[in-house]
């Protein structure tokens, strides 16, 4: 991994795209001493391009910001950003003609001296698709680095554990939650104009800071992310309370892949898995049916 070469090449490419007016803006990250880690930045002039950075702390998923850009944009995207972009295209949130992907090779980011959440399970150092490539050595070819792939297999864990152990793990996590919704704000899939948690129209939807509300929030969000989570880890990275619930989303992704053969963030043409059905879908959840669902 040669961050210096990658950064230099990134600045060159960005400056060129802006100079030629191929794009109006380059969406990337810049150093932010106040925050302590690089934060999203929109370069609009060739001079701005100098400020774009690329280092081991650049773990922010930028895909969601792309949905808010007007005019043609180039986005600096590592593999998890591209998976998220693919998911957003398949959900009609992005128009492929409106942006350029500067794909950038990544062997995993680090946060607080440890591998960043999500990076342990990342399948490849190469983005799923791209228009301009920046390889690990700063050239325009991919190096295809070996990935750690040490992420837990949630289904295997769940099958070995008891229902009480699973409840304890879930409770331990959500008990730390302060319902700040940062995880939702950071998530590429959570783009709803009006999230269910912000709708307080009926008495039964009122939110208190109690365990019941936390369960309702996290489980409903997990349900909304089923077959859409791209395992980017943004939700864990932003949580100031250290809540780690990505295993739940990952467990659901594993289930969806195993049962319906669908993986989020792979094919931009695919219809999202929960938006369709097959007449012969397995009766897995049903009374008297073949219950592979309840572990």
């Amino acid at each position, binding site marked *: 991994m040669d961050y210096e070469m990658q950064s230099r090449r990134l600045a060159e490419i960005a400056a060129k795209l802006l100079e030629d007016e191929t794009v109006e803006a380059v969406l990337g990250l810049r150093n932010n001493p106040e925050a302590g880690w690089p934060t999203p930045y929109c370069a609009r002039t060739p001079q701005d391009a100098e400020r774009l950075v690329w280092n081991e702390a650049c773990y922010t998923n930028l895909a969601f910001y792309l949905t808010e850009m007007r005019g043609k944009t180039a986005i600096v995207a590592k593999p998890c950003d591209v998976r998220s972009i693919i998911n957003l295209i398949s959900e009609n949130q992005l128009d492929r003609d409106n942006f350029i992907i500067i794909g950038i090779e990544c062997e995993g980011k680090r946060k607080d001296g440890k591998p960043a959440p999500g990076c342990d399970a990342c399948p490849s150092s190469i983005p799923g698709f791209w228009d301009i490539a920046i390889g690990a050595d700063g050239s325009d070819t991919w190096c295809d680095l070996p990935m750690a792939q040490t992420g837990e297999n949630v289904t295997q864990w769940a099958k070995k554990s008891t229902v009480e152990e699973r409840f304890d793990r879930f409770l331990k996590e959500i008990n730390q939650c302060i319902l700040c919704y940062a995880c939702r704000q950071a998530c590429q899939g959570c783009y709803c104009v009006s999230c269910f948690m912000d709708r307080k129209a009926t008495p039964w939807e009122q939110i208190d800071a109690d365990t019941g509300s936390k369960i309702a929030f996290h489980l409903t969000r997990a349900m909304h992310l089923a077959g859409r989570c791209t395992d980017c880890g943004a939700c864990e990275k932003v949580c100031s309370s250290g809540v780690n619930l990505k295993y739940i989303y990952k467990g659901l992704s594993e289930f969806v892949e195993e049962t319906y053969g669908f993986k989020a963030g792979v094919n931009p043409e695919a219809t999202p898995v929960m938006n369709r059905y097959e007449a012969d879908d397995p009766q897995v959840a049903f009374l008297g049916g073949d219950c592979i*669902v*309840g572990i």
Partner: protein
Amino acid sequence: MSEQAEFINPAPSDPSTGASEEWTPRIIAFLCNWCSYAGADLAGTSRIQYPPSIRVIRVPCSGRVNPQYIIKALADGADGVMVSGCHPGDCHYLEGNYYARRRFAVLKRLLSLAGFHPDRVQFTWVSASEGAKFAEVVSTVTEKIRVLGPSELGGRDGA
């Protein structure tokens, strides 16, 4: 009592009152208007006996059952949730129950992962002509939930 306190001390303080013979779980039943609700009606008019455990909420279609309703019911301390709709192929709106089938499969796995006993949530198909089956389904579901005992989350309303 605060929710938190209820949570740490689940409802029955005396374990013998937990999954006892007399205890009847409170089950929220979402029934689709066109099949299962009519099936329940038929069970009633045919005077078929079944346990008084379900609290019925009539919905237009099993596809109308937002997973949030089920999660909310459990989070608020229901002992179980049952959803019943038309058999695949018989949906009044043609395909609502097919979407529901996927959703429920995923929801059930989700609840399992989070440590809710999978038997607390039950999905079935009951048609308008299956009064006897409806009664049988309620009995089976009630028994499955009865052996689990009261919800770990405790009832909020105490009813």
